[in-house]
């Protein structure tokens, strides 16, 4: 069983198995990935990089499709845009 790694979602530590994507880390943290035009929380829909509902800021880079980015130890994921 591979050792879990630790990432930060909005400053809180989340433990994930290696190979987990940032979108899943956000889901595990229990928070929506983004906020819609009218203020509703949204989570991943397509899981394959075409719906853009999973967009988040990762290590300072904004609007990345978090479902296509694999977690690295210490990765900073932010859903507060």
């Amino acid at each position, binding site marked *: 069983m591979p050792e879990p790694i630790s990432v930060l979602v909005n400053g809180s530590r989340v433990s*994930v*198995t290696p*190979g*987990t*994507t940032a*979108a*899943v*880390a956000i*889901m*595990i943290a229990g928070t*929506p990935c983004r906020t*819609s*035009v*009218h203020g*509703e*929380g*949204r*989570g*991943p*829909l*397509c*899981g*394959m*990089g*075409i*719906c*853009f*509902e999973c*967009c988040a800021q990762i290590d300072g*880079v904004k*609007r*990345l499709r978090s*479902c*296509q980015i*694999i*977690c690295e130890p210490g990765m900073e994921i932010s859903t507060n845009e």
Partner: protein
Amino acid sequence: MSESVTKRFDVLVVGGGPAGMAAAVSAAQAGVRVGVVDDNAGLGGQIWRGEHANSNSEASGWIRKASTSGIELIAGVRVVDQPRAGVLRGESLAGPLDFTYRKLILATGARERFLPFPGWTLPNVMGAGGLQSLVKCGLPVAGKRVIVAGTGPLLLAVAAFLREAGAWVLFVLEQASRMSFSRFATRLLWHPRKISQALSLRKSLSGVPRLTSAWPVAAEGNGVLQSVTISHRGRRKKVDCDYLACGFHLVPNSELPSLLGCRVRDGWVLVDDWQRTSQEQIFCAGEPTGVGGVELALIEGQIAGFAAVGDQEGAKKLFRPRAKQRAFSTALNRTFALRPELRDLPQSQTIVCRCEDVPLERLSGLRSWREAKLQTRCGMGPCQGRVCGSAAEFLFGWTVDSVRPPVFPAQLSTLSQNVRELDPVVAMRGEQ
């Protein structure tokens, strides 16, 4: 400003799923320079996402072949534009990357079709393939209650997969009728391999209620999914659950082929017997030519790969298997055709365009996709109509066909790079 690097190939394959891998492996047999570009971290596409090269599965075999035949894999790169003929521009976290090719094989696959219904924008409502992808990428579902819904053979595969991952699959809701299903099942008799797949699926799903003529009417919850109201043969029932995995079969990713000038009809890329498109240097294989599943994608990929390097004999050997698979696919797609009742699911306030929050009431009465974009911004958000456009085609009968670069949202720095020639001789000639 960083400069873009240009990578040159004899045969470039866009898409590293089954069709793309098959095309690359077949082309590589001629000893030419082959590259595969994909926006995921590894090979496999959607259906074989997360598969590795070291097991006995068919997926593993292809990944092994594609990784060891001298083929160069460029992972994590998304093709966004064609800055000039014969050059594709890709975007990656490391900067822009240009590709030149003598022959191009497009294996861009398909995506799920999403249809709107009240509550479909709640977190934890996702596609069927969508939830499967997320679980493959680490989402824990052990002990979670899941409803799988929509249409298509994908639903059963996803339900079986989720069960194996420890989820409690409450229902599989298929909108097709029982009669369509039985007619389809008799077709399986001609395809022994598919029978054994079907039987093994049936075994994996024993005990899971599988309803036909059934679909979700609404998803409910306070900020997150908590329950789903199901319609089954005119009766409604509210069921508590943690995830709704709902997708209505597949639509082709034909945006890049369109951009490159390939003729497309009703979203399907037109190809000849050699899988060649209307553009002489460009081939297309797999779902964009017609949704047909893995077996057909592998066959079409091989034909395209052989044809691209001039191996007509190699390609011809696969013509009959292709015809057989295509007949099966045609029957399959007919079985899972969408019933008209699904057009009544969204209510006036239901969001249709998720990117721009455009509700149904603002779209009803508009005459075309273009009018919808101009009047409401529907389809002008990041997904560029990949979600709402496919829904609108079904809901309103619009043709969603205008493609402009970039085919995916891209950074300004990616688009503004001049194509840089590394080979001065080629630069003097002015083309690749």
